[in-house]
């Protein structure tokens, strides 16, 4: 052993040290990041939450086309939507923000609060044609931080055959009592009533909001009598067996899978399931979610915003604005929203969508009455309220607390 280590050791050691040193410096210059970007001013980065669109899809083709029109090369990265907010915060911390960021609407106010996004005053994005109720989700403190690329929302899908078998006329479903009566008939006929998602994440709050708002409750006061009536409605459905116990663990996808079995009369789900609905193999219809005593309940808006993160080199905004403007131009919105199965954010394109596909009519109606979760100037207060809201829904539905106690506790925790 000693003889082996005798001579070659210093040489080996020197080599090792050199190797380590070079790797270390390589890492050091690599993580700088912004340096590489500045050097390559002809390349603009775009981040989006659409990993389902791979190279060669309509979306990436559109990105390339818009890049060519603006005279730059577009480098696109797709993230899982739940990952995108944290990745953006990290990138901003490192001075590495993308030039264009397409991001889920409730996250916009958080990113704005963090100082990551530019306002439309700074970046000159045109939002004049956008429906104000949709644009509100991207507004915070009187400023606008982007423009929606498309919107989706929730409505009730129903299975025509199940309703027919139970003797329910869908036209009779106008408010909560008539809906509950329909569910009772369906159960009597041996089928299952309604499925939705009440999971302990943002998805759960998203699905509960149409009922919460439909009762006339406000997010600023969770424990109002109206809020309690909405939670009691869900709770009573579970107790009576109109809704399965599994809703507590359902994501919107698993809830859809339950509906797709063909056993359920109703499912609360989104615009994005339309393509799957056609594949389900049974006749279905779509009904806007009814308010407690009639009318359409405001449903929360889903869908993404095109935003321009702040850059050190403010000269980049002109080109970024061109890219964002191209992505949200009337012609491109129509194409993009069709591939995403979204409702367009402008009346002009919405009318074009309905003309091409009558099936979208109830969805456009739902989107027009929809409401942003961070609207009403809630902004970054919304995430805290929402967490308490989904917790209250879980506590009440699982039977660990009464709807009243659950919401009272939620209200005091959300303050």
């Amino acid at each position, binding site marked *: 052993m000693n003889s082996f*280590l005798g001579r070659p050791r210093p040489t080996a050691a*020197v080599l*090792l040290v050199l190797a380590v040193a070079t790797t270390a410096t390589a890492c050091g210059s690599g993580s700088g990041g912004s340096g590489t970007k500045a050097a390559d001013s002809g390349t603009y980065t775009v981040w989006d939450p659409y990993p389902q669109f791979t190279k060669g899809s309509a979306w990436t083709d559109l990105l390339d086309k818009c890049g060519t029109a603006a005279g730059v090369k577009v480098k696109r990265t797709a993230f899982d939507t739940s990952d995108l*907010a944290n990745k953006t*915060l990290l990138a901003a911390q490192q001075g590495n923000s993308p030039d264009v960021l397409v991001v889920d609407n409730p996250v916009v106010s958080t990113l704005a609060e963090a100082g990551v996004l530019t306002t439309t005053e700074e970046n000159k994005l045109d939002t004049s044609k956008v429906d104000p109720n949709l644009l509100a989700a991207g507004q915070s403190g009187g400023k606008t931080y982007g423009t929606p690329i498309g919107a989706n929302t929730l409505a009730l899908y129903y299975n025509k055959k199940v309703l027919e078998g139970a003797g329910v006329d869908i036209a009779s479903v106008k408010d909560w009592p008539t809906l509950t009566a329909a569910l009772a008939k369906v159960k009597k006929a041996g089928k299952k009533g309604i499925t939705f998602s009440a999971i302990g994440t*943002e998805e759960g709050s998203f699905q509960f909001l149409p009922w919460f708002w439909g009762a006339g409750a406000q997010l600023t006061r969770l424990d109002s009598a109206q809020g309690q009536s909405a939670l009691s409605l869900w709770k009573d459905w579970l107790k009576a067996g109109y809704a399965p116990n*599994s809703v507590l663990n359902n994501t919107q996808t698993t809830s859809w899978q339950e509906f797709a079995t063909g056993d359920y009369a109703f499912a609360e789900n989104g615009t994005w399931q339309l393509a799957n609905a056609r594949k389900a193999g049974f006749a279905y219809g779509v009904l806007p979610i009814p308010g407690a005593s009639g009318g359409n309940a405001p449903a929360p808006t889903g869908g993404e915003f095109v935003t321009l993160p702040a850059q050190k080199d403010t000269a980049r905004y002109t080109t970024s604005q061109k890219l964002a403007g191209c992505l949200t131009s009337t012609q491109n919105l129509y194409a993009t929203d069709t591939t995403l199965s979204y409702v367009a954010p402008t009346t002009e394109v919405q009318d074009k969508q309905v003309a091409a596909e009558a099936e979208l009519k109830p969805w456009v109606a739902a989107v027009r009455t929809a409401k942003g979760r961070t609207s009403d100037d809630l902004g970054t207060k919304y*995430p805290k309220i929402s967490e308490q809201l989904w917790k209250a829904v879980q506590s009440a539905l699982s*039977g*660990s607390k009464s709807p009243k106690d659950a919401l009272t506790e939620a209200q005091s925790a959300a303050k």
Partner: protein
Amino acid sequence: MSTSRSQLTIRTTQAPPPRTESRGAAPQPRRRPASPLWAAWAFLAPVTLYLGLFYAYPLYRNLDLSLRDYTVRSFVQGDAPFTGLANYRKILDDPTFAPALLHTAVFTAVCLVFQYAIGLALAVFFHQNFRLSATLRALFLVPWLLPLIVSASTWSWMLNSESGVVNTLLGALGVGPVNWLTSPSWSLTSVIIANIWIGVPFNLVVLHSGLQSIPAGLYEAAALDGAGAWQRFWRITFPLLRPVSAITLLLGLVYTLKVFDIIWIMTKGGPADSSTTFATWSYRLGFGNLLPAFGPGAAVGNLLVVAALVFGLIYVRVQRKQALS
């Protein structure tokens, strides 16, 4: 997961030295020709650098994160004020703290006991080399080899209240449906069952290899002396397996303390926090909400690190004592 696993393997291989030292053999005289000190440092450099970059620095950052008041704004701008132990006070006052502590303790203890007991029973069973024993043993490894997302999703399907196979079976036996994942009184039990199933193969493998090192002659001698199977187990197998058992339990403890994936996939820590442990709570604080609370999230994570460290130190202590005696 894999990093901490390899880190721990390093620890296991390092564990023996104190024993050999104490077994006599005075410190070896330095027979090597005097070599320059810098060469020694150069050899140390890679591992020091590695430990510094990938262990010490992240740990320091996590500590720093837990001692500052981070908002999304200060996270980006990097000017979070130092607030001392405010984040720790915050999580101690949080109504989630007590239940999360209790769930972590129950989850870890129950999982460890069952994983070890079942693993040991299977190890002893497979130690008698019967036909197909190797094949069967390989089959038992499947839970360990499956990605956690697969096994956890499968468990959550099986335990589904309406359409799960478990409730269908119970129904056939005349037992009413159990809301495994959606009732606050069952959710912790459900994730414990799934985690035991996942942890058994690890215990089986380690304990089985521990059994191989017990000389067969001992059993023969005991059998000649008239010891029954039960006595052979308690008088030979169990005591001689003690060092292996200790390390198995310690590793199991560390893995179980930080189990996150299974709980998150099956119940998200719910309903109503009924299956929330420190690991899922830490994640939820840091990432599970649209508005991340990095400081408190890091604080909960650090509590977990401290807990694992305490048990690690106890293990080292016990080892040293055993070696000395």
